[in-house]
C-alpha cells in the first residue's frame, strides 16, 4: 500500500551548545582548580598556564598554516589542551616544559592524526607524560602556600601524599587538608574541592555525563575498600586513594575528553572501569606512586575496541537475540583487525618521456619537497620556539652562570665586589673585564688568557690591580694530566703569583719556581700571568698603570 506522508525536516531547534561552547565550558570548569593553584603556588602557576595555552595555540596555528589547512584556533581546543597540560605539571617546572609538552601534544598527538576529534590519545595527557620523563621534574614538588616567584624557583621538595600511600601508610596530611589541597602535587590536582566544583559544573551543563568519572572513581574506591593494607581503616584508605594524586583531575578532565573516550554509553562505563582498575594496579604494583596518566593513556588505546563492544543493544529484540547479536558483532570486530603488510614497490619510478633524463628526478625531488617541506618548517619552527623559551626563561642556568662568575671574581680579585665588561680588546686576551668595589671604585682588570700547557691549552683569568700587581689567578679550563699537571693549579701554587708585578721569571729576582713534576703547566701559567700583566700595562686607560720590570 502506498503511504502518503509529508516530507519532514530534521529538528528546527538545536541545543545551544556548539563544540567551542562545550570546550569553553570545560575551561570554565577548570577555573576553580586554576584559582586554587594560584592561591597555593603564587602567580607562577598563572604564568605557566598562560605560556602553555599560548604555546598550544601557536603550534596549532603554525601547523595549520604551514600545511595549508583551515584555521582551527577558534574551536578553542588547543587552548584547552594547553591549560590542561599546564595544570598537570608541578608549579616549579621551568617555563619551557609546557612549551615542549604542548609541541608534542598539538603537533604529534593531535595534528598528525588529523586534528580535533581524530586523535586517539589525549593530547594534553600525552604531552604531560612525555614531560614527566624529564629528569627531576616529576620528583620535586613545591610546598603549597609557599608562593613561588615568577622568576627563579627554589623548590623545596614536598612529600606528596602518594609517596606514603605507595608505601602502604596514610599520609601526614589530614583528610580536610587533602580536600582543600594543602599538599604537594601538580598545580591542578591538589585541591579535590576545586575539581569537584568543576565536575558539578560540567554535569549541570551536560557537557559530560557521569558515566566515565563515576565508573572510574567507583572502581578505584571499590578496589581501595577491598584491598586496604593491614592496620589502616578502609574508608580512610579509600578516601585518600580518591583524593590523592591526579585521580580527580584525570577522572573529571582527562578521561572525559570526548575524542579519546568511547562514544557509546556502555563503552564509556567500561572505559571508566578499565581506567580505575589500571590506576589501582599501577599505584599498588608499579615503582611509581602514581598511575593515573598511564592508565588513561592505555585505555585511550583501547577505545576502538570499547566502541565496538559497547554498541547499544538493538531496540525491540529480546535478551537472547541481543546476546547472540553481541557475539556476532564481536566476531565481526575481530575480523576487522588486519595485519597490513605494506606492498613493496618493485620498480623505481621511470622518468616520463619527453623530458631531460635528470629533470624528471628533479621534479620528484620538488614534489617531495612540496610534501615534506611544511613538515620540516613545522619542525624547525617548533624547535625554535622551544629553545627560544628555554633560553629566555631558563633562569636556573642563567643564575648558575652568574654565580660561577662571582666565584671566579672573588678568587681572582678578592677586593672587588662585582665585575663588568670593558670595551678593551688586546692581542692575546680572550676577554678583559673590570672589577669594582661596592662603592663603584675601579679595582683592576681581569684578563682571560690562554697558553699552551703540557696537554693542551690552559685558560686562566688573571686579576691585575691598578698598581700593576697580580691580585689572583684562576684556571678556568685546562686539559692537563690530573694529579700531575694540576699540581701547578692548587690554590697554594696559584697564590704565589699574588702581589707580583713586572715580568715573572723562572729563576732569579721576581721568580716563581716551577712546581716540580708540572714544569710545562707552571711555565704556561707563568707566561699567562706575564702576558696579562703586559696587557693591563699597555691598556689605553685614563689611569697610568705602572709596569716595573725587574728592579
Amino acid at each position: 500500500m502506498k503511504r502518503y506522508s509529508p516530507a519532514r525536516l530534521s529538528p528546527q531547534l538545536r541545543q545551544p551548545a556548539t563544540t567551542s561552547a562545550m570546550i569553553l565550558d570545560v575551561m570554565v570548569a577548570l577555573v576553580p582548580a586554576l584559582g586554587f593553584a594560584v592561591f597555593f603556588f603564587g602567580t607562577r602557576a598563572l604564568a605557566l598556564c598562560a605560556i602553555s595555552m599560548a604555546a598550544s595555540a601557536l603550534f596549532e596555528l603554525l601547523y595549520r598554516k604551514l600545511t595549508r589547512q583551515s584555521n582551527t584556533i577558534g574551536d578553542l581546543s588547543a587552548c584547552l589542551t594547553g591549560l590542561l597540560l599546564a595544570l598537570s605539571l608541578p608549579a616549579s617546572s621551568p617555563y619551557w616544559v609546557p612549551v615542549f609538552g604542548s609541541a608534542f601534544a598539538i603537533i604529534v598527538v593531535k595534528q598528525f592524526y588529523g586534528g580535533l576529534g581524530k586523535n586517539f590519545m589525549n593530547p594534553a595527557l600525552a604531552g604531560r607524560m612525555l614531560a614527566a620523563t624529564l629528569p627531576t621534574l616529576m620528583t620535586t614538588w613545591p610546598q603549597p602556600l609557599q608562593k613561588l616567584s615568577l622568576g627563579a624557583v627554589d623548590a623545596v621538595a614536598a612529600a606528596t601524599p602518594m609517596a606514603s600511600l605507595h608505601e602502604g601508610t596514610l599520609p601526614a596530611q589530614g583528610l580536610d587538608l587533602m580536600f582543600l589541597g594543602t599538599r604537594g602535587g601538580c598545580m591542578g590536582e591538589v585541591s579535590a574541592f576545586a575539581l569537584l566544583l568543576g565536575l558539578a559544573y560540567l554535569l549541570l551543563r551536560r557537557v559530560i555525563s557521569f558515566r566515565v568519572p563515576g565508573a572510574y572513581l567507583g572502581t578505584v574506591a571499590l578496589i581501595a575498600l577491598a584491598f586496604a593494607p593491614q592496620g589502616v581503616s578502609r574508608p580512610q584508605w579509600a578516601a585518600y586513594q580518591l583524593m590523592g594524586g591526579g585521580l580527580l583531575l584525570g577522572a573529571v578532565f582527562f578521561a572525559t575528553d570526548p575524542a579519546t573516550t568511547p562514544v557509546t554509553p556502555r563503552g564509556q562505563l567500561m572505559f571508566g572501569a578499565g581506567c580505575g582498575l589500571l590506576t589501582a594496579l599501577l599505584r599498588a604494583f608499579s615503582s611509581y606512586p602514581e598511575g593515573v596518566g598511564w592508565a588513561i593513556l592505555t585505555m585511550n588505546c583501547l577505545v576502538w575496541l570499547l566502541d565496538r563492544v559497547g554498541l547499544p543493544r538493538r531496540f525491540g529484540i529480546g535478551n537472547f537475540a541481543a546476546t547472540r547479536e553481541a557475539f556476532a558483532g564481536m566476531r565481526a570486530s575481530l575480523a576487522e583487525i588486519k595485519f597490513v603488510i605494506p606492498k613493496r614497490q618493485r620498480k623505481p619510478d621511470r622518468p616520463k618521456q619527453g623530458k631531460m633524463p635528470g629533470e624528471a628526478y628533479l621534479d620528484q625531488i620538488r614534489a617531495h619537497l612540496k610534501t615534506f617541506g611544511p613538515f620540516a618548517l613545522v619542525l624547525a619552527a617548533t624547535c625554535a620556539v622551544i629553545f627560544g623559551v628555554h633560553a629566555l626563561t631558563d633562569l636556573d642556568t642563567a643564575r648558575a652562570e652568574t654565580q660561577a662568575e662571582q666565584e671566579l671574581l672573588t678568587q681572582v680579585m678578592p677586593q672587588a665586589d662585582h665585575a663588568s665588561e670593558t670595551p678593551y680588546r688586546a692581542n692575546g686576551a680572550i676577554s678583559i673585564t673590570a672589577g669594582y668595589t661596592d662603592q663603584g671604585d675601579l679595582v683592576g682588570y681581569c684578563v682571560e688568557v690562554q697558553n699552551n700547557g703540557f696537554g693542551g691549552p690552559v685558560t686562566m683569568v688573571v686579576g691585575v690591580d691598578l698598581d700593576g700587581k697580580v691580585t689572583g689567578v684562576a684556571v678556568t679550563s685546562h686539559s692537563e694530566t690530573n694529579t700531575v699537571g694540576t699540581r701547578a693549579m692548587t690554590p697554594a701554587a696559584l697564590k704565589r703569583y699574588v702581589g707580583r708585578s713586572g715580568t715573572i721569571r723562572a729563576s732569579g729576582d721576581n721568580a716563581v719556581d716551577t712546581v716540580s713534576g708540572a714544569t710545562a703547566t707552571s711555565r704556561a701559567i707563568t707566561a699567562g700571568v706575564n702576558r696579562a700583566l703586559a696587557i693591563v700595562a699597555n691598556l689605553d686607560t685614563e689611569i697610568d698603570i705602572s709596569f716595573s720590570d725587574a728592579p
Partner: protein
Amino acid sequence: MAHTFFGGVFPATRKSNTRRKPLSKLTRPPLEVVIPLLMSADGPSVPVVRPGEMVSVRQVIAQPGADGGAMAHASVSGRVAAIENRPHPWGGSSLAIVIRSDGQNNPWSGSPTPKEPKDVDLELLVSRTRAAGIVGMGGGAFPAWEKVSQAAGRVDTLIVNAAECEPYVTADHRLLLERSEKILRGASTLGRCLGAQRVVIVTEGDKLNAAESVERRLRRHRSSAQLCTVRTRYPLGAEKQIIQTATGREVPPGGSPLDVKCVVFNVATVYAIQDALFFGHPLTHRAVTVTGGAVTRPRNLWVPIGTPLGHLLEEAGGLREEADLMLTGGPMMGIPLQSLDAPVTKDTNSLVCLTRGEHKPQGNGAVCIRCGKCVAACPMHLAPTFIRRALDEGDMARLARYHVEDCISCGCCSFICPAQIPLVETVARARTALEKGVGPR
C-alpha cells in the same frame, strides 16, 4: 510505573505562551474553507459533491476512493465554490473542495444518532469511526478505523497519547484539560470494545493541571483507567517510546505495536471518536495551537478543518516580527509551510512561526568530536555517528550492522549534536543507500 525509555533530549518547551490560553472559537469564521482530498495516510478521497452545490455543516463531501482515503465532511455550511488544486500543508498542492461559507452553519440532517456508551460495540465503533472520517490526529494521519479493526481482540493495553512532547504545542494539553470527562469516557469505551484490560493515559510533567483534572475524574468515576505522568522528555510521544514508557515492552524491529499487544491513540483522536459515538458528530473541528516567537498573540483555537492557516494567524493578531520559518506540527518533527493558504487538515495540531533567534537552521556540520551525545540521545538505540562514518567511508558491510532501518526520524541526534552535523538526514541517506545496496557515490 518504573518503566522508561532510553535516550531522548530536553528541548526548551516554550509552552508557557499558550498553556494558559483556553481553546477558543474563531471570532471571525473563515469566509472560505479548503478541504483537501488528501487527509489520510493511505490515499486521497473522492468528492461526492459538485461545484455550485449547497452543503451544510457535517455533510459528507468526499468518501474513500479505490485506493483508500477517509470520509470528509463540510466544516461550514455554504456553497461549494470549486474543486481545484490548492496548497497542502504537507507540501506541494492537492485537489481540495473549496466551500464558500454562508455564515449560517446550518447542521446537516443526515448525521447518525448519538449513542450511550453501554450501547457501543466493536462493529458500531468501527463503522462510526469510518463514517466520521477519523484519522490519527497526532501527525501520522493513519486511518483510525483500520487501527481499531486490526487491534480488536489482539491488545491488552490501550494507550492514550497525551504526551505532546513537541515544544511550543499545547493543543492536546488544552484538549485534555478542558474535555477530560469526554476523553475519559471515550477512552474507556474504546478500551472495552478493543478488549484491552488496561487503559493508560500518558502525559508529561509540564501538563500537571490537565493531569490533575484527569486524576480527579478517574477517582470520581472509580474508573479502571490509569494516568501515567512522566517527566517531560522528547520524544515521549513517539509510538514505540510511549509503549515502552507505559508498559516496558519494546516493539520488535519492523513490527507494529500489536506485536506487543498495545495500541496507541492520540488524545485528539480519542476525542474525535467519542464525538462520533456519543454525539454523532463527524470530524470537522480540531484544536490548533498558533504560537511561536513571531506571533503577536499566541493562542489555542478550536477551528473548522479546512480553515486556511493564514486566517488562524490573523486570528492570533498576525506576525509581530518577521518569521524566519513557519511550520505545522511542532518544531522538532514539523513540516515546513510553503504557503499560508494551506488549510488546517485533520492532523494539523499547530502553526508555529519561529523568529530568526529561535530557529536555528541546520548547519553544514563541523568536525565530529566523538562526544557520543547522539548515541546517548537516540531512543532507538542507534549510533548515528558510526552510521555517518560508515556511510562516509562507503563501508556497506559495516553500515548493515548498525540497524539503520530502525530510525524513527525523531531528530534527537541532530538536535543534540554540538558540531551541528545533520545526522537525521545522514541516517536517511544511509537507509536509502542500504535499500539500493550501493554506496553513496
